[in-house]
C-alpha cells in the first residue's frame, strides 16, 4: 500500500484505449516523474490523478481512499500547469488564496498562509501585481505558491518548466528539487525532458504508447533499461544501439561488431548468461560516455575492451568532445574528454567499458536480463 496508488488504471476514449492498465504505487515523500514522448499518455494519467479526466477502469487511491468519481477539489491535490493558469483578472495574492477562499477558509488565515508561502518563494513584493505584469519565472513561482498554500497530499506538475527559456529552466529545476527536499512532499511530475526526469526524480516511469515501459530509480532506468525504447529515450546523446553477433572466445561471450572497414571488433561481455546466445544476432547497446580514449577509460571498471576504428567526425562541445564513427553499420557516438587528441579520418584506439554494455533481443527489443 503506497501513499498514492494507481491500480490497473485504464483510459479509453470510445473504442480507443489510450492508457493500458497502468500500475504504479508512490510512497509518501516520493518524487515520481512520468516521462515519455508526446501522446504517450503521461498527461492523461496526471489528469486522471487530478480528477480532471475520468478513469475508465481500475482504481486510483490517495492515502487508501478511492478517488474514482471524487471531485478534483476534494482530493486534496494541487496542480501546477504548463501555462501556469494564473487567473488574469486577480492579483498574485488573490491567485494564491483563491483555492483557500473556495474552501471557506477565513480571511485572516488565508492572509497568513499567503504570506508564509510568499516568503518561502520570495515573491512578497509581487503580491499586489497582476499576472500579466510578471516575467515567466515569476509566474512559475506564483503557480507553485498557489499549489503550496493548500498544503495538499500530492502535488501534480504538468510540464511546468517547458515554457521557460533554457537558463531559467535549469534554475527553476534546482529550485523545485530544493523545495521537495525541504518540504518532503509527494510529487507526481510530468515532462518530456529526460534530463528533468533524471535530475528531479526519486523514481521514473518511462511511458510510451499508453504503456509504462519501465518504472525504477533514475540509475536503474539509465543503466539497465528494460527495452530499446527506454534505452534510447533516456540519455543525451541517446544510447548507441547496433546489430552484433554473440561469439564464444576463450569460454567467454563476446559481441562481434563490424567496424568501418568490415573487420570485426570483439568486445567481451561481463554477463556470462549471454553464452546461451552463442552464434545468434543481438542488438548491442553502448552509452556514448562508455566509449572513450584509452586514458579516459573508467579505472574502476573490470572490463575495458579495446577497439580500433576510424573517426568520421569530431564535435568539440566545450566540456566534452563528441566523436562519431561507423560501428555495426550504424552511426555511433562516443563522448570523450575535451582534451582527447582526436581528428576526423584518423584510425583511433577506443576503450569500451563493456561492464556498462547491454544486450537486447532483436525480436522483442527487450533487454536480455542476466
Amino acid at each position, binding site marked *: 500500500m503506497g501513499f498514492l496508488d494507481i491500480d490497473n488504471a485504464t483510459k479509453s476514449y470510445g473504442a480507443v484505449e489510450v492508457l493500458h492498465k497502468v500500475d504504479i504505487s508512490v510512497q509518501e515523500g516520493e518524487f515520481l516523474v512520468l516521462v515519455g514522448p508526446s501522446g504517450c499518455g503521461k498527461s492523461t494519467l496526471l489528469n486522471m490523478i487530478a480528477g480532471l479526466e475520468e478513469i475508465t477502469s481500475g482504481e486510483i487511491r490517495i492515502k487508501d481512499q478511492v478517488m474514482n468519481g471524487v*471531485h*478534483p477539489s476534494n482530493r486534496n*491535490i*494541487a496542480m501546477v*500547469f504548463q501555462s501556469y493558469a494564473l487567473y488574469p483578472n486577480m492579483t498574485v495574492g488573490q491567485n494564491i488564496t483563491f483555492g483557500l477562499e473556495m474552501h471557506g477558509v477565513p480571511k485572516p488565515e488565508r492572509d497568513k498562509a499567503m504570506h508564509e508561502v510568499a516568503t518561502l518563494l520570495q515573491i512578497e513584493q509581487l503580491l499586489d501585481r497582476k499576472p500579466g505584469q510578471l516575467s515567466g519565472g515569476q509566474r512559475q513561482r506564483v503557480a507553485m505558491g498557489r499549489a503550496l498554500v493548500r498544503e495538499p497530499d500530492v502535488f501534480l506538475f504538468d510540464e511546468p518548466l517547458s515554457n521557460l527559456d533554457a537558463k531559467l529552466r535549469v534554475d527553476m529545476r534546482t529550485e523545485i528539487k530544493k523545495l521537495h527536499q525541504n518540504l518532503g512532499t509527494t510529487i507526481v511530475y510530468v515532462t518530456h525532458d529526460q534530463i528533468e526526469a533524471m535530475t528531479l526524480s526519486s523514481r521514473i516511469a518511462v511511458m510510451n504508447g499508453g504503456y509504462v515501459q519501465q518504472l525504477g530509480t533514475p540509475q536503474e532506468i539509465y543503466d539497465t533499461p528494460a527495452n530499446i525504447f527506454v534505452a534510447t529515450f533516456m540519455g543525451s546523446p541517446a544510447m548507441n544501439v547496433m546489430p552484433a553477433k554473440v561469439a564464444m572466445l576463450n569460454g567467454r561471450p563476446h559481441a562481434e561488431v563490424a567496424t568501418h572497414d568490415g573487420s570485426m571488433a570483439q568486445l567481451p561481455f561481463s554477463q556470462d548468461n549471454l553464452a546461451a546466445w552463442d552464434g545468434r544476432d543481438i542488438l548491442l547497446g553502448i552509452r556514448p560516455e562508455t566509449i572513450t580514449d584509452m586514458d579516459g577509460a573508467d579505472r574502476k571498471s573490470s572490463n575495458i575492451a579495446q577497439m580500433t576504428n576510424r573517426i568520421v567526425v569530431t564535435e568539440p562541445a566545450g566540456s566534452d568532445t563528441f566523436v562519431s564513427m561507423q560501428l555495426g553499420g550504424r552511426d555511433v557516438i562516443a563522448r570523450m574528454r575535451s582534451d582527447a587528441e582526436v581528428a576526423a579520418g584518423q584510425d583511433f584506439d577506443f576503450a569500451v567499458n563493456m561492464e556498462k554494455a547491454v544486450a537486447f533481443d532483436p525480436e522483442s527489443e527487450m533487454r536480455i536480463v542476466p
Partner: protein
Amino acid sequence: MSQATQDTAIRTGRVTRALIYVVLILFSLFYLLPLYVMLSNSVKPLEEITGGGMMNLPQVFTLEPWIKAWSSAQIGVEPTGLRPYFWNSIKMVVPAVIVSTILGALNGYVLTKWRFKYDTILFGLMLFACFIPFQIVLIPMARMLGLMGLAGTTWGLALVHVVYGIGFTTLYFRNYYAVFPTELIRAAQIDGAGFFQIFWRILLPSSGPIAVVSIIWQFTNIWNDFLFGASFADANSQPMTVALNNLVQSSTGVKEYNVHFAGAILAAMPTLLVYIVAGRYFVRGLMAGSVKG
C-alpha cells in the same frame, strides 16, 4: 508590422495627396448632408421649411419642435409626444440586452468549457436563429405570447428580443471563450470553484471586450427594431420606433416637418450615444480571437 506598411505604402506626391483629401472631404460632406438637414430643420420654425428653405441654415433658432416632439406631439390619438414611448423602449431594451447577453455568455461557457455529446450540432442549430427572417416567426410568436399572457406588453416584447438575440450572443461568446485557456478552468476546478463560481470569478471578468460587442449589437438591434414592435405591442407598450412612425404618418392636420425631424433625431440618439461611448471597444472585441496575438 507598421514598418512593413510604411515601406510598402504607395508613395504619393503633393498634388495627388491634395486630390485624395479633396475627394475624401467631398464624400464626408455628402454623407453628413442628411444629418445637416435633420439638425438644421429641427431647430427652425415650420414656416421656414414650408417656405422652401429646406437646405438653409435657420434664420430663427427655436427649440420648440424638440419640446413638442418630446412632450406634446400627437401620437395616434393621444397628444403625449414621444416621451412615454421612449420609456417603453428603455424598459424593453435594458432587460432584453442584459438577459440575452448573460444567457449568451452562459451558453458560450457551456459550449466551450463543459463539452458534451452533440454540442457542436446544438451550436449549429442555435446559429439558425441568426439567419431566420423576422417575418417567419411573427405568427407563431404572437400565438406563444398570447398563450403566455404576455401579448401587447413590454415584457412580451423584451422576451421576443431575448429569444431572437440569443443566437447572436451565443455565437459571440462561444467564439471568444473557445480561445480562452481551458487550463484556467481546470485550475479553478482544482481550487474548488463550482460551475457558477468559475463563470463569475474567472470567465466574466475577462469577457469585457466581447460583452461590449454583445451589448452594442443587441442594443442597436433591439432599439431600432420596428417589425416586432409594430406586431406585438399595443398602444401602451409601443416602442419609440413605432411611435415615431405614428408621429410622421399621422394624416390629419399640418405636417410639422420640424417636429418630425426632431423626433427622428430623438429616436436615433440612444444608439448613437452607445456607439460613440463604447464604439472603440466594439472593433477591438470583434477582432479579439480572430487573430492570434
